[in-house]
């Protein structure tokens, strides 16, 4: 990575929707959570970021949606620098569907109300104050609820739902935004294997039909390889490996200082614990 320093935007491609050049980030300006991240995610990709807890992978997502700014380096998301206080970026924030690890649902509101929150950027301040949505918005929200497998549960309060159903609500809220990018932070980590795969199928189907770019953070390398076409492995804030799946072959894009074997061992050790 060192030799790339100094060169300006070495690998910008018109196809890439997220571009990170030498990005470092820290919360307290002392310890870097992310160090010199080089990343290019092409439009329509199904990208996974894998790492142990505390490796900085959630921070990566917050950099992409502008909730956090990098300490060093440059990020471009759809040719704009993410920054929530910038009007230009704010007007495109609805294109990024962000599903945080704890989902951030309004537990006292109904499923439909939660999902309609995704449509708020298209609703005037006056109408939204009275929670007035047009019929087409409501129809669209209901269609998406059906798509994620929540038909008949629109009027349920969120606190009454199971863990898997709550994740479906969060996915539906993101899809109602009519996004171009979906960011999901460990959306299936706390679920059992069967439910986790159901949720991943819902996301995969939505991604295919709505032509989305999916960037998902996972804990489990196995799961990431199964669903993503490219997987970046983050260890202690650094991208140590980027592999892709082409057909039934794993293609190595960057193995950094670690061998694939070492990385895989790292993960198998963890799952034994």
């Amino acid at each position, binding site marked *: 990575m060192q030799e790339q320093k100094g060169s300006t935007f070495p690998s910008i491609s018109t196809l890439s929707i997220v571009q990170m050049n030498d990005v470092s980030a820290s919360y307290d300006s002392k310890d870097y959570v992310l160090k010199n991240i080089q990343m290019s995610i092409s439009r329509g990709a199904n990208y996974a970021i894998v790492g142990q807890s505390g490796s900085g992978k959630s921070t990566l997502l917050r950099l992409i*949606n*502008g*909730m956090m700014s990098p300490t060093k380096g440059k990020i471009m998301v759809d040719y704009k620098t993410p920054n*929530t206080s910038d009007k230009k970026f*704010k*007007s*495109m*924030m*609805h294109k*990024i569907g*962000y*599903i*945080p690890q*704890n*989902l*951030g*649902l*309004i*537990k*006292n*509101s109904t499923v439909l*109300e939660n999902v309609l*929150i*995704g449509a*708020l*950027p298209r*609703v005037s*301040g006056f109408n*939204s*104050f009275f*929670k007035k949505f047009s019929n087409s918005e409501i129809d669209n929200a209901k269609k998406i609820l059906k798509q994620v497998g929540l038909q008949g549960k629109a009027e349920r*309060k969120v*606190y*009454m739902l199971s863990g898997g159903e709550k994740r479906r609500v*969060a996915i539906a809220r993101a899809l109602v*935004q009519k996004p171009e990018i979906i960011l999901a932070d460990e959306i299936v980590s706390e679920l059992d294997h069967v439910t986790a795969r159901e949720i991943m199928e819902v996301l995969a189907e939505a991604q295919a039909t709505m032509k989305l770019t999916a960037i998902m953070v996972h804990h489990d390398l196995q799961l990431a390889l199964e669903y993503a076409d490219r997987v970046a492995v983050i260890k202690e804030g650094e991208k140590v490996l980027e592999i892709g799946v082409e057909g039934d072959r794993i293609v190595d894009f960057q193995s950094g200082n670690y061998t694939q074997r070492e990385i895989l061992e790292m993960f198998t050790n963890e799952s034994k614990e």
Partner: protein
Amino acid sequence: MNQKNNLIIGLIIAGVVVMSVNVDADPRDFAEGLPNIGIMLKEITEVDSSLFVTAFWSMLETIQMAFIGTVVGVAISLPLSLLAARNLNNKFVYVPIRALLAAIRTFPSILWAILFVIIVGLGPFAGVLAIIMYTVGFIAKLQYEAIEATDADPMDAVGAIGVSKIQLIRFVVLPESASHLLSQILYIFDYNIRQTSILGLVGAGGIGFYIINYIKFFEYGKAAVFMLVVLATVLIIEWVSVRVRDKYIVKSQRGMQIKS
């Protein structure tokens, strides 16, 4: 550690003793005065039942005053509390609003009542205004604290969609803090009924007017009628608010069903 705790407790007890001497609070006076309770209790039992009708109507007036005061007070305090919440505004907005609320809170309701009696004259209207002021100062503080305690996760998640502040308030802040706000409104209504009962002391209407007058003329039996009506009313309100709380607040907080 333990020694330090003992020292603190000792200091507090010493403080109580020294301050009691300072303010002339002597337990011996209490012991000497105990027989007076007997006289009072005896007279209180001589209830003048013909006054119950008057007591009922003046209690009704009190409840109406408390109701108006609570509703108007809450309606004023809700927008103020949204402006005073640190997680929604910058300090140029919340500092002045908080200062204003703190200033309002420095007066207890009885002082507001005196002030409004001077402004609008004797009668229930002065009492209603006093209750409004007290409710605004007190409930706005509780509300901005509840708003600040709103879970940061939904705020973050919805904020990341790029919604406006009004939309964030309407769809995240209010639903998330609704059960706290409702609980506080019930509490202040209950409290306002009790404090409206004494505003009559300064001529600001309500049942307190009768209580203070009969007590002034040592007619404890007559005052007792009014006190009993206040007691019964407070118990009824308490019962109703427990039912409302169970139905709307506890359930939504825990997601459970209360068996009645």
